[in-house]
Structure formats: C-alpha cells, structure tokens
C-alpha cells in the first residue's frame, strides 16, 4: 500500500538522502521519511543523524512517517535512535491510525500545537508534502520567503529557515535562530543569531536591543564587547570589510 509518488528517481543531489529530508518548521525540525522498507529506513536515518548530529543538536524533532503503519516497538527503536544522537523526538506525524496510537502509548505527541492537523493528529493535506523537499527551496527562496514568529524564543528553541526570519518577541540566551537571509528581532536579542547561513555576506541582523551571546553572518562570528549590553537602542549588524559590526539604527529620510 505504498503511496504513488516519490520513488527517488527525481532526486538530483547525490549527497542529500532521498529517503530522509530535514527542514526547519515553526515547531523545530521536521524530518520527513520517504517510501522504503523499514530496515532500509533505519539505516538511512542513522546515517543522516550521524552526519548532521552537531547541526541538529538541541532542536525539537518532529518526525513525519507518512502512511506507513509502525508498531510500538519500531517507534521506540526510532526514539532510541534519536536519544543515542542526543536528540529529542517530540512528535510523530502519521497518517495511519495504528502508528498514531503507538506514538501516544510512547508518550509522543501526534500533532503540532495549533497546526494543520486535527485533534487526532491526522495531517491535513497542506502539512504533508514530502515531495517538495529541501532541494527546491535552498537556492531560489532567499529574499522571497520569510518566516514571522510572534513569540519569545526561550532557551533550547532552535529556528532554522532558509529565507528571512522576523521575530516579534525576545530571543533569550540559549535560543538560536539560523536564517539563510536576514534576521530581524522586534525585541531583545540575547541569544544566538546566524544570518546568511548559506553564505550570503550581505545579510543583516537587526534588533531593538542587540545584546546577543554571539552573532554570525555567513562565515563570520562575532561576540559583542561588554559595554554593549547597556545600550538599549535599535541596532543593525552587518559585514563591513570582512568583519561583523553593529551600528545604531539611523532613520533615513
């Protein structure tokens, strides 16, 4: 009873696993599993997690398993796999009722808060589009799509998005925001922000109160000087002659 689409032929990039795709969503990271036998899936997932462990660490994981029916033992094996990589699996999104029941037995959530799923955890069509994958977005989308979050990001939250990110709220120490484009924080920035994470040197970081633990733009890393924290004025950080600098925001007429 495999689904008709996505056999794997159309995938171009060799180093990207066709069976396991990882992408940032509002609630953390969404891992979507393609169609393949369970055994193959596990080895593929293990390889992917091994490879990206450092990058993924600290994120909240949401696993989308499509319409395969998984037993409780299989799910708990997957859960253990995440634990071995020091990652926490929070949510299983599944189309199959048996999988959802098994996930609930293991204490996993089966829906995202306020998301496009019904109470049972059944994914509504828009949330499950495994075939669009990360390939189509990685190069074309910068400057075209933005992610707006109206909330305070607390320690342990990790937001990854390949376009711009706007946060209306604070970014607390211990939270990280990683964007392919610019990052704007309408609030206090006290955590870590990485703008232009895909290499865009012209990316900027703006905040009403810029006192981050660390700033990164493209491949540059900067730590603010101590006197910084006293200045509660809007500032903008960008790269000038190979260095990250921050300037008070000057309204232009």
């Amino acid at each position, binding site marked *: 009873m495999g689904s008709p689409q996505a056999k794997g032929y159309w995938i171009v990039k060799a180093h990207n696993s066709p069976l396991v795709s990882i992408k940032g969503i509002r609630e953390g990271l969404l891992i979507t599993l393609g169609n393949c036998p369970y055994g193959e899936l596990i080895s593929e997932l293990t390889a992917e997690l091994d490879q990206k462990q450092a990058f993924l660490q600290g994120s909240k994981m949401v696993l989308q398993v499509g319409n395969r029916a998984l037993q409780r033992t299989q799910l708990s094996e997957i859960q253990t796999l995440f634990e071995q990589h020091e990652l926490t699996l929070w949510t299983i999104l599944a189309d199959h009722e048996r999988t959802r029941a098994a996930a609930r037995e293991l204490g996993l959530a089966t829906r995202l808060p306020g998301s496009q799923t019904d109470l049972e955890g059944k994914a509504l069509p828009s949330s499950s589009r495994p075939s669009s994958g990360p390939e189509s977005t990685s190069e074309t989308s910068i400057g075209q799509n933005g992610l707006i979050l109206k909330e305070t990001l607390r*320690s342990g939250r990790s937001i990854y998005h390949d376009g711009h990110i706007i946060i209306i709220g604070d970014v607390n120490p211990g939270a990280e925001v990683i964007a392919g484009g610019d990052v704007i924080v309408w609030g206090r920035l006290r955590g870590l922000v990485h703008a232009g994470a895909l290499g865009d040197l012209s990316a900027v970081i703006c905040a009403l109160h810029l006192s981050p633990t660390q700033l990164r733009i493209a491949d540059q890393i900067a730590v603010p000087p101590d006197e910084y924290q006293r200045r509660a004025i809007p500032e903008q950080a960008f790269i000038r002659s190979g260095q990250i600098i921050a300037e008070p925001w000057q309204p232009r007429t």
Partner: protein
Amino acid sequence: MSARVVTVTSGKGGVGKTTLTANIASALASMGKKVVAIDADIGLRNLDVVMGLENRIVYDLVDIVEGRCRLRQAMIRDKRQPNLHLIPAAQTRDKMAVSPSDMILVCDQLRDEMDYIIIDSPAGIERGFRNAIAPADQVLVVTNPEISAIRDADRIIGLIEAEEKGPGRLIINRIKPEMVARGNMLSVEDILDVLAVSLIGVIPEDESILISTNQGLPVAMNGANGSIASQAFQNVALRLDGKEVPFLDLTPQTGLLNRFRSWIDGR
C-alpha cells in the same frame, strides 16, 4: 470537589523543588485544604525525607501503577496534619517505570477527594519531567538567582508552553536581599526581565529551612517558628489558592550609605 494538580519543576537540580513542594503542600493543608503530595522523582526519592515520612513507606507510586496495591494503600497520611498526604516515589526503579498517561490516571483518581495535588518533579527535561507535568493544571517553575538556574528555567517555561500547560508561574528561591542590595546578586526584576512570566513567590535564603529539612518538619507546618521563609511559603500557598497577597518586603535594613551605593550600582 475537583482537585487542582500543581507541578513544581525547575530544570536545574538543587534549586529547592522538593523543599518547596513539601512546604507548599503543608501550607495548603494548614489552610484546611485536603492535599496530596506526589514524588515523581522515581529512583531518587527525597520528598518523604523532607516531609519526615520516610519510615512509614510501605507502597509507592510504581506499586500503584503496576497494580501491586490500591491507591489508598500507598497514600501516607501525615499524623501532624491529617489533611496532608504523600505518595512516595519508588527508590529501586527508574523514571521509565511510569508513563505520562499513568500519572494522569493516578491524578484523575485522586481529583474527587482532594483539593490540591502537588507533584514534585525531578530535575531535567526527560521522561521524569514529562511524567510530572502530564497531569498538571498549573506548573510552578522554581529558580535561584543564578544565571544557570535562570537559563534552565527559561528552557522549562518554553517546554511547558509547548506542552500547552499554560505559561507557568515563577518562584524565586534562596534570594539574599543584602547581596541584591550590594549589586552582587541578580534581583527579582533582573530575573523577571529575562523570563517574563508571572511571579507567584519570592523565598528568601533562611537557615531555618535547612534545619527543618533535616528534621523532616516543613517550616510551613502550622506556621512553625514564624520565620520569614515560612511566611513566604504561606503566601505562595495563598496565591495559589487565588488570594491576593502582597509580596514580602525583603529590602534589608541597612544604613543610608549602603542604600546610596546600591542606587548607584543599580543605574
């Protein structure tokens, strides 16, 4: 009558979750409420010791969950406060012995006969923490005026929100007003500035807590010895019960010079 389930948690260990649980439970009981305290720290049980009930344990939480005893049999009634009960944790098992749904089930069975169910959460954000917050109607987050504890509290508040357990309310424990005045300790305002949640209590550092903890006699019990911390615990209990109680004035009685100095430091 339907009980409210209140979980006391912190993320970081050693900030005073167990002491607070024992004292809030005791303070609520002394207000005439029927209270049961549940120790969710399976494998590292402490609440029984702090409450002075260690020697009366026969059955524990895991025995209830695994069906070796009835709920009633594992509930220890405190002889000093007949309204106060304890369900102890198992010491010989681990967190995996209980699931979040087991906790919900246990609490649901208690709701009809109790006014408050206070759950003592283990440190950390793993299974034990998830067990402890699963049945909660209200979560109290405990922190100390230390950066590390505040960072963990921030993370915990985020997790509580993700579990749709409301915003959580904050207790700042072990604050030293003199050190705050000298600018050597984070103040209540500094902490609230980062955490941005509603405050339900500020407990000053008080030697009598350590003494009473070692004796297994919560300071809040019958307002014992009238220490300032004991008063602070009572106030948390009252606020939990929906009463409006002003926060204790913890400004140290110091000379003009000190106050002037702290005013300068505070700028």
